[in-house]
């Protein structure tokens, strides 16, 4: 694993967009060429800084979607009232440059302490992005820890990485709940994540699991509280809030 992933001074550096691909109607993945990139840990993020020609600057953070040994990729959801996301999802072309800083974060990373802990990932909307990195990394290192992803999305067309998640590695279970719209004949869960649904999917606390919750702030707080209510120690529930009102 890249030992320099979290140590030392961070500096802004120029990244060039290598390729773009649309995940859904409002979500796009950008592959970035970052000279001298020292690698990252699964779950980390990077900061993006855009400068307009009159000097106006905007900064945002995005989770890294790729596994540690893959080229850097970020997945961006276009927010209706966004300032940066419309640019990254609609304007940016391969060959364009912008500044990035990273990788960042030593908390929301996997593995964490005991790599054999059963892994519970809970994603609200675009909160699934760091989990793609984590699940790819888990597969690459040949980990056999039990892993479950509970993914709350507005509708099936809003599910990011659907094809990739539809062909999970052997022991990764993906459970969806669609909050606003379900396709005809849907037999999966509907509506927001409830304590009852958490009770069904969460690894029992006695198995010493570790949970990662990522997505809009309201989703994260509700789900994290639900897990603590099930008996998860708070320090075994890791949270990363995306804020905003987008999401399921």
């Amino acid at each position: 694993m890249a030992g320099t992933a979290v140590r030392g001074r961070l500096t802004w550096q120029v990244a060039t967009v290598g390729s773009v691909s649309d995940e859904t109607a409002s979500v796009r993945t950008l592959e970035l060429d970052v000279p001298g990139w020292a690698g990252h840990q699964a779950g980390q993020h990077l900061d993006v800084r855009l400068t307009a020609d009159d000097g106006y600057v905007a900064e945002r953070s995005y989770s890294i979607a790729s596994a540690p040994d893959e080229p850097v990729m970020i997945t961006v959801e276009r927010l209706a009232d966004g300032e940066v996301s419309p640019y990254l999802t609609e304007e940016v072309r391969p060959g364009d440059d912008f500044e990035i800083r990273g990788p960042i974060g030593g908390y929301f990373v996997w593995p964490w302490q005991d790599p054999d802990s059963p892994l519970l990932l809970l994603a609200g909307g675009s909160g699934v992005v760091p989990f793609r990195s984590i699940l790819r990394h888990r597969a690459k290192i040949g980990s056999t820890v039990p892993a479950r992803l509970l993914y709350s999305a507005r509708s099936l067309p809003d599910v990011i990485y659907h094809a990739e998640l539809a062909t999970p590695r052997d022991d990764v279970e993906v459970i969806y709940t669609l909050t606003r719209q379900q396709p005809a004949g849907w037999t999966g869960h509907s509506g927001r994540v409830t304590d009852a649904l958490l009770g069904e999917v969460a690894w029992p606390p006695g198995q010493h699991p570790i949970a990662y919750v990522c997505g809009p702030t309201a989703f994260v707080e509700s789900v994290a509280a639900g897990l603590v209510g099930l008996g998860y120690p708070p320090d075994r529930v890791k949270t990363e809030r995306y804020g905003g009102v987008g999401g399921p």
Partner: protein
Amino acid sequence: MDALDGNAIGGLLQEIFGAEMTTAVATCATCGTAGVVAETVVYLRAPGTVMRCRTCGAVLMVVVRREDVNCVDAEGLAALEPS
């Protein structure tokens, strides 16, 4: 705009302290609660970045960016210990 958490200022804190700080333990000077920086309440969309205690709401740290300098007020922290 909803509140975020300390993950959102990981880059800023690394710029200020020269080290990864989201796993650092912050102790609130107002209520004494200790917790990792990643789990503090953070408001980014302000004239400055405001970090608040998740337990009591008191301000822990404020960072105001002035020209290219980060002005850091950490009086709300009784302690900040990198892990």
